[in-house]
């Protein structure tokens, strides 16, 4: 069959899967008084529509920051404002100041889910399609299978369409940036990445590789590089200025926004995350030993150390392949060692793995998706909420089946062992009740297991980045 029809089929399948997941319950459904991320997004629409811009990030009588105050950069706020305009046209009750708190209805759910789908259709899906068709290796058939893998990545679908968030927008913009850089359009790529950064501050996980790659490229080109540097610099400054313009007029505005999006007072980690600090906490209770400030500096130091090798390597060898590896390494490093990491942050590392696909990378990709899902499962157990059983089962089933389908093409023993271990753990966590003095046994086990996998992957990818043999293919990629 022709490529275009296969691509259309993949996109449609991706859309159907997304809608299918969106039938289910969202985060915080029917759970007053705080509800969940869904209510947070709705509340932001309410705040941005009804209040003047100066009040969005401040604690006022009309804007209670304790009830889901805005904690993403301005582009999210503008997006919420746009959605609010549409919501107002359909049903003003949805964004009424104060009275619409905790509003839940089938029509509203439809609207919110539709907004995620529309955002994905406009930003994420085209980026994935273009990237797969232009910048991946292999025959057209192989490109389409990579496209399918990426589109069906369960982590992103479950978070955006189940739990409810708009990660598709920021990841999509980052992907546009990667695509532009891959084609040599550096200024355009920088602009796209600045937009991504202004949408979610989590994209900082990817910022270092972008910086090092572009800087390294400029250095390599000598005099021409200087002009490139100027062009990129101007683009970045202009884009950032444009996004943050309303907040730059008053220094207190800017600092308040920064304070909201980087909450340094919160502590090394909150929930069970499969990263270094949470796992270390099992052996040494770090959070009680160190003060909040020293925790911050410790994590900063460790993150910088972890990211340094790959960034320096990229600076000296700014090829696109190195760039892609550095993206993975940097996001993994940040995930493992950074401050206040949320388990969803693993998305930043894993969603792009199939796009880097060369032989053998399929395995870590599947492993991260599984690890993410199992870990999510563990978190649900820990919260002991009455998540309807079918939702849990569905997640696990989805993960299992997804891995099985991928596994038909991969035959690595250690992969099967991992799957087996994960299966055993999850069955045990449901069937066996933990000993009374260790109530959190299974969630902790699962998250540690996942952490070991992520750490292993981090080491593996660093090794790959440093031992890349100079082959004909990589020569072509130096632009």
């Amino acid at each position, binding site marked *: 069959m022709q490529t275009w029809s296969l691509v259309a089929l993949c996109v449609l*399948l991706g*859309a159907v899967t997304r809608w299918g997941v969106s039938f289910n319950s969202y985060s915080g459904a029917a759970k007053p008084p705080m509800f969940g991320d869904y209510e947070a997004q709705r509340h932001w629409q309410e705040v941005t529509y009804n209040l003047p811009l100066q009040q969005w990030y401040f604690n006022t009588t009309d804007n209670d920051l304790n009830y889901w105050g805005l904690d993403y950069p301005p582009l999210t706020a503008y997006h919420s404002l746009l959605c609010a305009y549409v919501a107002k046209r359909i049903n003003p009750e949805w964004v009424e100041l104060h009275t619409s708190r905790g509003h839940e209805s089938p029509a509203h759910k439809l609207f919110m889910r539709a907004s995620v789908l529309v955002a994905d259709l406009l930003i994420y899906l085209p980026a994935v399609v273009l990237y797969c068709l232009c910048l991946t290796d292999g025959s057209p058939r192989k490109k389409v299978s990579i496209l399918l893998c990426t589109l069906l990545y369960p982590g992103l679908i479950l978070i955006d369409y189940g739990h409810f968030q708009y990660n598709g927008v920021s990841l999509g913009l980052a992907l546009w940036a990667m695509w532009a850089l891959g084609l040599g359009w550096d200024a355009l790529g920088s602009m796209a990445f600045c937009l991504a950064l202004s949408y979610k501050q989590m994209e900082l996980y990817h910022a270092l590789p972008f910086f090092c790659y572009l800087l390294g490229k400029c250095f390599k080109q000598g005099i021409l590089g200087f002009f490139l540097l100027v062009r990129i610099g101007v683009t970045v400054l202009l884009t950032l200025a444009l996004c943050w313009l309303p907040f730059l007029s008053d220094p207190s505005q800017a600092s308040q926004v920064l304070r909201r999006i980087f909450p340094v007072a919160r502590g090394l980690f909150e929930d069970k995350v499969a990263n270094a600090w949470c796992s270390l906490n099992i052996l040494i209770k770090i959070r009680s030993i160190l003060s909040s400030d020293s925790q911050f500096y410790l994590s900063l130091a460790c993150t910088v150390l972890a990211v340094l090798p790959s960034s320096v390597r990229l600076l000296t060898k700014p090829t696109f392949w190195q760039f892609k590896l550095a993206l993975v390494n940097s996001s993994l490093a940040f995930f493992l060692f950074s401050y206040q990491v949320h388990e969803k942050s693993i998305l930043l590392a894993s969603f792009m793995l199939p796009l880097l696909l060369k032989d053998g990378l399929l395995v870590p990709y599947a492993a991260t998706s599984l690890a993410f899902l199992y870990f999510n499962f563990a978190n649900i157990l820990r919260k002991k909420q009455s998540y*309807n059983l079918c939702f849990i089962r569905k997640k696990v089933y989805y993960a299992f089946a997804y891995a099985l389908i991928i596994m038909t093409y991969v035959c690595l023993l250690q992969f099967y062992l991992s799957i087996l271990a994960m299966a055993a753990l999850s069955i045990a966590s449901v069937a066996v009740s933990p000993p009374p003095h260790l109530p959190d046994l299974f969630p902790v086990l699962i998250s540690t297991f996942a952490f070991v996998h992520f750490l292993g992957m981090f080491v593996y990818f660093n090794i790959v980045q440093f031992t890349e043999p100079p082959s004909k293919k990589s020569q072509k990629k130096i632009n």
Partner: protein
Amino acid sequence: TPGPKMASAVDHWFMALALGVSLLKCLFINAYRSTDFEVHRNWLAITHSLPVSRWYYENTSAWTLDYPPLFAWFELGLSHVGRHFDENMLRIQREAYHSEATVLFQRLSVIATDLMYILATRECCRSVSVQKASKDILNRPSFVLAVLLLFNFGLLIVDHIHFQYNGFLMGFLLLSVAKHLQSQHLQGALLFSVLLNLKHIYLYVAPAYGVYLLRSYCFTKDHPDGRLNWRSFSLLRFFALGSIVVSVTALSFGPFVAMGQLPQVLSRLFPFKRGLCHAYWAPNAWALYNAADKGLAVLGLRLGLVESGPQASMTGGLVQEFRHTVLPSVSPSVTLPSCLCAVCLFLFGWHVHEKAVLIAILPLSVLAVQSREDAGIFLILSTTGHYSLFPLIFTAAAAPEVSLMLLFTLFSFCALTKLHRCSLLGFLERLYLLGVAAVCAVCEIVLPLSPLGARLPFLPLLLTSVYCAAGVAYCFTRLYGSLLRTPGHSKAKTS
């Protein structure tokens, strides 16, 4: 005779497809459910809580048991599993009951029983396998057939959203067809008798079945020139077939005959009081008839020839008997003369449900991967038939269903065209199919926003029904024509 069978190893791609489609079905667990969900829950309750003698008399709830006894036994079996999910679903009550566990159990039961359908699909794929399969998996007839059957849009919508057990039942039909293609006629007959006793709607295909079995199994030899050899009629084989059918039916209906309840059971199974057309018109000939009647009535009103009366309720969504205004009313006996195939009965049958078009589409898929002409007919029938199913899903957000339909339609067009290596549709046919999109646009967007739509609320349904009826009728004519035109072809198939 069918082509030589491929090696019996279960192909990887088939497993991946089966797993993938089951996954997709799981995603629809929490989607819109119709009243059919409550119907089946009620039947679980009836068969579990009441003795057999009361099954066909129970009418606390409006959803009385109206499938043959074998299906009732099937529901009894399910109820024993359902007991572990939620005991309360097995209570007989008038109000609907849908706890989360109930929904989960019932949806999972449909997905699990679809295993029958998956097995049947695999048998059909084996039957269409060719010796020199192309290297490209996507271009093999067995792969295309597997996708067309497993991912059939109509089946997914009706079974996993609207809620029914058609996959399970169609599995029996397809498996029996596959057995016949493999010349294992007695097994095929057994499967078909079981099917008839599970859901009597398959009486639609019974005449064709009967004639086929008679011709190919009971008459053992042909004349050299292909004509029927009347003297080769084998009484033994005829009795073998007959005994299979009779014994299965006896097993199913036996207890009720013994209790003298046969009339009651039959009245439940064949409710002729329900009227010529279902609440929503299936796209069959009676839709055209009704449309003509309505048109003439409106005209008659305008001209003062006819008095106005309670006619607008035809498509009101309720099942009831009604009278035609201008054209003579149609009574059951008029529609009973036997017809030759499922499409024919669909077109002309009494109280046809639009889901019945699936019974025609699925077997046609098997033909479509083998013959160019059938592929063209399949494309038209599946597109119009599937489109006519949309009113079954009353949600505002038909987005997943639309995407699913686009997915299936796109695949069927591209795959079949590539398989047969030529264009399958003529210009007029293409125009007709584009017209389906136009009808969709008019019904979904134009009419709701225009004043005409407010005055004539039944208009979208009527439009859909009539337009699709034209397509289905056209397909029927072509199928009939192709059957009559290739006598050698059909005789070769029966050997």
